[in-house]
């Protein structure tokens, strides 16, 4: 029997970037806000300790990630297969605890391109509606880059973003990304120092007329105090960034950037070890009345609230919607329904370059967002229609730090162990880099999320079931990008370039990226989106669902910047519109 608690004005489910930003934006209203976080709290200062750089503990045992013994999802490539549990961490790693995946991210802080927000309109404009395959759900977000610009800007200021603008109010700036959408101003901090590998890539790419630039980073290139009074240390390029907490207070995270602001608000209460199991609706399923959660001891509580914000990870948000009956579940047989629709991921390919012995890479020097990157092949910039696919993406060389358990490249043909393997490993450690693409991932009718009919999690709930595989469009893209990567590798004048083709099918096993998107898409049509352009449920108006679950298809860039910008956009709509007149905003 659940203990019923005193009602709150707002309940926030999950305290990663989206939950903490939402709480911070709404705290000024004076409303009583209760945030429920399933994991523990790790203050930013708790990582100012050499033990925070223990590769075995954080990269192999994945201490900051969710415990799969309790919660995981099932997976299959096609609806003809039986989905089975993801029993070990693999393809993506979802954070647990305050900060969520924002505590262990690398810090790559993109604004998505104007195309990403209006992919359908721009594709039709260029190639005609007939170019879009029937089973592809290519959709606009319902909010444009221009509308989100102030929110992208605000988040960059909060994070102490380090980068070089390429387009300030339409004026093209040398050294930045000439293809980006217009920005209102320069980045708060200059770009990170490029690693040896990133330099080689930039030299090679420039040699063949491309436009490489340093990726924007939430790893502070200099010590800095942001407009909220949060101070960042200077990035140490220590090479222990993604999967880790920051030992220098240099990388923005909810824990470092937002929680100290919330700690000062008397109307905000954080409850950790509070795992929300479902949202309770009224009899008509039109209004959320409360959420049910369990504490660390398994005791059940009911927290009533006037407004519910779902701000857990992509998959958990969709899971809660399905378990709670918020919106109509997607049915691939009929194509009807919206919750679980438009789930997408990114396909990968590239090339490995074995570099000249005269230029050692010092591969252990780096940070999560240290990348040289180019957008010459991004949709809108590049004519992908000539190559038979919709989409595109970035090509990059990243230097996150070659930690020795994880990063020991050897050339093809090397024996799998023994003396010759050791010799190759030692010879290559300073001399290998990977050029890789991060590409758009379109959504399709056959790829979706729903509730598993067989497997249940540790709390007795049906697991979320993921049905996903790549499509011809994505294979054409990835193969083309592998060829482009080889061309850049060759332009670097390196010793040997080896093409990396995309995998034959999507696999849940190797780590790829924690860039899952969709399942609760935003849009302007309630038949094809789960939330409106303000991230408000079409069906249950006092529920807002924030995060990358709102992206109708995957971008060719890391999602966090857009996750934050859309959250700030939704918070603005709640503060200035919803609270004045609670009800549907669209």
């Amino acid at each position, binding site marked *: 029997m659940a203990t019923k608690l005193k009602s709150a004005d707002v309940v926030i489910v999950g305290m990663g970037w989206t939950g903490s930003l939402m709480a911070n934006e709404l705290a000024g209203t004076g409303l009583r806000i209760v945030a429920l976080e399933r994991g523990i709290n790790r203050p930013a200062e708790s990582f100012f*300790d*050499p*033990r925070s*750089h*223990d*590769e*075995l503990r954080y990269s*192999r*045992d*994945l201490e900051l990630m969710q*415990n799969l*013994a309790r919660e*995981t999802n099932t*997976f*299959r*490539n096609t609806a003809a*297969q*039986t989905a*089975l*549990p*993801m*029993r*070990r*961490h*693999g393809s993506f790693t979802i954070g647990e605890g305050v900060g969520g995946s924002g505590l262990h991210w690398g810090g790559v802080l993109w604004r998505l391109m104007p195309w990403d927000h209006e992919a359908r309109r721009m594709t039709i404009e260029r190639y005609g509606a007939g170019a879009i395959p029937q089973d592809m759900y290519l959709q606009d977000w319902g909010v444009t880059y221009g509308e989100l610009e102030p929110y992208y800007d605000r988040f960059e200021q909060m994070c102490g973003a380090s980068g070089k603008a390429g387009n300030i109010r339409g004026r093209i700036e040398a050294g930045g990304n000439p293809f980006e959408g217009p920005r209102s101003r320069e980045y708060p901090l200059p770009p990170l*120092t490029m*690693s*040896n590998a990133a330099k080689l890539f930039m030299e090679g790419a420039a040699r063949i007329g491309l436009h490489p630039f340093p990726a924007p980073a939430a790893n502070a290139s200099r010590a800095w105090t942001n407009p909220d009074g949060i101070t960042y240390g200077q990035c*140490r*390029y*220590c*090479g*222990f960034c993604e999967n880790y907490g920051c*030992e220098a207070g240099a990388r923005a995270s909810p824990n470092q950037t937002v929680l100290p602001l919330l700690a000062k608000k008397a109307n905000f209460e954080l409850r950790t070890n509070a795992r929300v199991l479902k949202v309770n609706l009224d009899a008509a399923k039109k209004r959320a009345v409360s959420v049910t959660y369990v504490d660390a001891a398994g005791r059940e509580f009911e927290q009533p609230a006037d407004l519910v914000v779902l701000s857990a990870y992509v998959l958990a948000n969709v899971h809660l919607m399905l378990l709670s009956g918020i919106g109509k579940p997607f049915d691939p047989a009929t194509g009807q329904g919206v919750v679980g629709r438009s789930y997408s991921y990114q396909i990968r390919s590239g090339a490995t370059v074995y570099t000249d012995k*005269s*230029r*050692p890479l*010092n591969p*252990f*020097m780096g940070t999560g967002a240290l990348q040289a990157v180019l957008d010459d092949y991004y949709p809108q910039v590049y004519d992908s229609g000539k190559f038979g696919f919709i989409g595109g993406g970035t090509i990059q060389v990243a230097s996150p730090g*070659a930690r*020795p*358990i994880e990063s*020991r490249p050897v050339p093809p043909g090397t024996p*799998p*162990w*023994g*003396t010759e393997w*050791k*010799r190759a490993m*030692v010879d290559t*450690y*300073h001399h290998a880099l990977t050029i890789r693409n991060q590409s758009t991932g379109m959504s399709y009718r056959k790829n979706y999320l729903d509730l598993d009919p*067989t*497997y249940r999690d*540790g709390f007795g709930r049906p697991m979320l079931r993921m049905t996903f595989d790549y499509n011809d469009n994505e294979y054409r893209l990835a193969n083309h990008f592998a060829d482009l990567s080889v061309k850049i590798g060759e332009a670097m004048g390196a010793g040997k370039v080896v093409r990396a083709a995309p995998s034959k*099918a999507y*696999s*849940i*096993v190797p780590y790829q990226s924690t860039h899952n998107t969709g399942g609760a898409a935003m849009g302007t049509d309630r038949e094809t989106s789960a939330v409106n352009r303000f991230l408000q449920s079409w069906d249950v108006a006092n529920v807002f669902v924030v995060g990358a679950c709102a992206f109708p298809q995957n971008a060719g860039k890391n999602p966090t910047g857009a996750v934050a910008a859309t959250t700030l956009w939704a918070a603005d709509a709640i503060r200035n519109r919803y609270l004045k007149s609670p009800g549907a905003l669209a």
Partner: protein
Amino acid sequence: MDDIVDKSRRMFFVKSGATTALAAGALASPLAGCAIAPAAKEPGAKNARALVFLTPEEAKCVEAIVDTFIPKDDVGPGAVELGVVGFIDRRLSGGYGLGANQHVAGPFLSGVAEQGAQSALVPRETYRIGIEELQAHCGKNRGGRRFEALAPAERNAVLHEIRDGKLDFPSYPARVFLSQLFNDTTEGYFSDPIHGGNIGMGSWKMIGFPGPFRIYTQEIEKNRDRKFADAPRGIADLT
């Protein structure tokens, strides 16, 4: 606490000259190189080096396997002298060995490779069952000898047979055993010495990794076309 255990282990190694003994291929002693050989005479002094999960017989087999994966040679130290057997034994005795953080609730159905490992096996069982089946195979096909009694080239050949799918186990795919052992060997060899392996940061010195918690803010520019080659420092050196 960890630091104290670790430092004492490394001190023991230096004093006992265990590395030299290993160079001579001292597989006769099951505990050689596991940082678990007899040390001081005071009661309790051997606790930090005792086997916890593996039996002495199993430890001999694991030692022979990790020595095949990463032998001592002109390139650098071997897995045995860097304490990898002791590391694996401690890993298996804790949460990792029991599959903590692994989803081990049924039903257990087999699927396609893209769905990942589906069996109920946890690392402890992978070792216990796999070692027994490897020994049974060698007993039958290698003249009644145990794996560790094979010559290095023969051991290597057996492991390659598993890799190539020519040798399988009755209870579970032998490749699972091989990749579990290889994974744990590299973790023990390359992880921070606070976990008991990578004694003296031997693997880091070999590849030129300077250790965690470095500050490279100024070093990237200073080392554009040369190796940054400062001696490594581990976590215990910094705490």
